[in-house]
C-alpha cells in the first residue's frame, strides 16, 4: 500500500535526521570548554568505577573511536548513568516518557479541537460580536507568557479557590491504598492533569482558532458550499459537514509546524507543575549539570517530535483524500 511506503520512507528520513542530531550533539559536547570526561563521569564515583565507566563509553579512546562508541551506545540505549539519580539514564527517561506523551498529546488534541470548534463558529458568525470577542480572546491567550499563566493557574485554582492539586501527577495515598483499582488511579492522574492541561490548552488553542477562522472564511466562498445550499441542506450540516472538514486541513498542518514549539511549552509546564516528564528532567539535568541525563533527554525529545510529525502527516493524508502518498 502507498501509505505504508510513505511511512517507511519517512521513517528512513527520521533516522537520517536523528543521526545528524546525534552527531551535532556529540560535537557540541566535545567542543564545549572543559574536560569531556568529567562531563560524562559522576565526580562522586570511586576512581575504579570511573575508569570502568570511561572504558565502557570509550572515553579513553581517540575522538573518532569515541564517536563510534557513542553511536553504538545511543543505538543500544546505553547512555550513561545519571549523576543525580545514580541510575542508567535510559531507565529514568523511559519511566518519564509515558507521562510526557500523555500530557503532550492530550493538550495538543484538546487545543486543536477547541481551536477548530471555536474558529468554525467565529467564521460562521463573522463580524458579529461573538466573532470579535473570540478573535481578541484568541490573540490574547496566544500571547500570554506560559510560565506566568501556569503560576496564575496555581495561584487561582490551586490556592484561592483550591479546586485542583498544584504539583505532581498522583496522590500517594490513593495509590498506596490496597483497594485502589484502575479507575481510581486514572481519575487521580486526570485530577492532577487538569491545571497543566488547562495551561497548555489556553496557550495553544488561540493560534489554531485564528488559523481555522481564516481558513473557514476562505472555504465558505468555495463553490461546493453553494452546491450544498442548492441541495437544500440545512445550515448546520453545511457548516459542519461541508465547510469545516475542508477548513480544518490547514489547522492540521499548523499543528505539525508548532510541535517543536509545543514541546518547549511542555517542558516549562512540566517544570512549574512538577509533572514527572522528560521536559522537566531536561530542565532539571541542565540546571544540575547532569550531562548524561541532559544528552539523553535531548535525544529522546528529538525522537518524540520527529515521530509526532510523522503522525500528523499520516493524519493529514487520512483527512484529505487528495493527498495519497
Amino acid at each position, binding site marked *: 500500500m502507498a501509505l505504508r511506503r510513505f511511512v517507511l520512507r519517512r521513517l528512513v528520513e527520521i533516522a537520517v535526521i536523528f543521526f545528524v542530531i546525534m552527531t551535532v550533539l556529540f560535537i557540541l559536547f566535545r567542543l564545549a570548554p572543559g574536560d569531556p570526561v568529567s562531563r560524562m563521569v559522576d565526580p562522586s564515583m570511586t576512581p575504579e568505577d570511573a575508569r570502568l565507566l570511561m572504558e565502557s563509553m570509550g572515553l579513553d579512546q581517540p575522538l573518532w573511536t569515541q564517536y563510534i562508541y557513542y553511536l553504538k551506545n545511543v543505538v543500544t540505549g546505553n547512555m550513561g548513568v545519571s549523576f543525580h539519580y545514580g541510575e542508567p539514564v535510559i531507565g529514568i527517561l523511559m519511566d518519564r516518557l509515558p507521562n510526557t506523551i500523555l500530557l503532550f498529546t492530550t493538550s495538543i488534541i484538546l487545543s486543536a479541537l477547541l481551536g477548530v470548534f471555536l474558529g468554525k463558529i467565529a467564521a460562521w458568525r463573522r463580524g458579529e460580536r461573538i466573532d470579535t470577542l473570540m478573535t481578541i480572546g484568541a*490573540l*490574547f491567550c*496566544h*500571547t*500570554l*507568557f*506560559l*510560565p*506566568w*499563566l501556569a*503560576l*496564575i493557574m*496555581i*495561584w487561582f485554582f490551586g*490556592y484561592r479557590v483550591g479546586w485542583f492539586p498544584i504539583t505532581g501527577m498522583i496522590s500517594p495515598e490513593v495509590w498506596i491504598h490496597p483497594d485502589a483499582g484502575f479507575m481510581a488511579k486514572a481519575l487521580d492522574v486526570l485530577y492532577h492533569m487538569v491545571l497543566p492541561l488547562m495551561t497548555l490548552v489556553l496557550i495553544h488553542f488561540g493560534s489554531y482558532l485564528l488559523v481555522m477562522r481564516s481558513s473557514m472564511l476562505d472555504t465558505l466562498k468555495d463553490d461546493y458550499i453553494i452546491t450544498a445550499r442548492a441541495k437544500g441542506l440545512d445550515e448546520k450540516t453545511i457548516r459542519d459537514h461541508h465547510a469545516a472538514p475542508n477548513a480544518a486541513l490547514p489547522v492540521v498542518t499548523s499543528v505539525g509546524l508548532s510541535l517543536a514549539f509545543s514541546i*518547549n511549552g511542555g517542558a*516549562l509546564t512540566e*517544570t*512549574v507543575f512538577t509533572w514527572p516528564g522528560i521536559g522537566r528532567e531536561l*530542565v532539571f539535568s*541542565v*540546571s544540575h549539570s547532569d550531562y548524561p541525563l541532559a544528552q539523553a533527554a535531548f535525544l529522546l525529545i528529538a525522537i518524540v517530535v520527529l515521530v509526532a510529525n510523522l503522525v500528523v502527516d499520516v493524519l493529514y493524508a487520512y483527512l484529505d483524500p487528495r493527498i495519497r502518498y
Partner: protein
Amino acid sequence: MGHPSSLSPTPKNTHSISAGKQRHHWVERFLDGWAVYRKNTIGRIGMALLGIFALMALASFVPQMVDPMYHPMTGVDPEISHSTGPSMRHWLGTDFIGRDIFSQLLAGARIAFMVGISSALISILFGTTIGMVAGYAGKGTDIWVIVLMIALFRWPGVARVIRSQTLSLKHRPFIEAARVAGASHGRIIFRHILPNVMPLALLYMTFRVTSAIIIEAALAFLGFGDPGSVSWGMMLQWVWKTGHMFQAPYWLLPPGICISLITMAFYMAGRAMDDVLDPRLRKEEIKP
C-alpha cells in the same frame, strides 16, 4: 546609462532616475509604506504599546538616581526585609529581600529591548544578507550557505524566507534588465533586491524579536538567565522559587503582564506590516 528602474514594480518614479536619486526613491518607498501603516488601527495600538515600553526602558535609569535603595539589583530598603505590598514608598511593593518591584519592572523593559533589538539586528543583518546571497547566487553556493546557516543556527528562518523571495525576484524583468545594463552583483543585490525584500524582512524581524524575548524570559524563569541583571523572567522566577505566588499578587502580576503585552505589541505591529506587504489587504477608498 539607461537605468532599468522604469521596469521596477514600484508604482511611483517610473521615469528614469540616476543613482544619486535612488536613495530618494528609497526614502519615498519607506514613506509610502509608513503612510499605509499609519492608517492601520492594530498597528497603531502596537506601536503605542511599544512606545510605552521604550519609555519604561529609558526611565529605568531614574530610580537608582533618586535613592540607591531603588536600585533594581542591589538596592534594599533598610527598613524592609520581606515582601510588602504597594505603598507610597514602593509603588508596586518590594520583593522578598526588600527590593523595589517597580524599578525592577523598569529594568526588565530595558533587558527586553536589548534582547529584542540585538536579535532583530542579528536576524536582519545576517538573515537578510545570507538569504539574499543564497537566493541570488543559486545552486553551488546555496548548499554552503545553508550549511553555514545551520552551523550558526539562529536565523535560518529569516534567511529561508528571504532566500525564496529573492529567488522569485531574481527572474523578474527589472533584475534582468539591470544585469544586462551591466550592474555589478553587489549593486543588484543592494539596490534592487534589498528594497523589495525589506518589508518582508521587517515582518520576520518582529516574529524573531517576539520569540527572542519569550525565550530569554523562559530561560531566565528556569534559572538560566544572567544573574547580573534583572529581567521580567527572573522576577517571575523569584516569585515562584520563593513561593510568593500565593500571597503576593502585586509581585506576580506585573512582570507577566509586561511580557505578554510586549509580545502582543510586537505581534500587532507585525500584523499591520501585512498591509504594507500585500496591497490587496488594504482597505483603500475607491478612487474615482
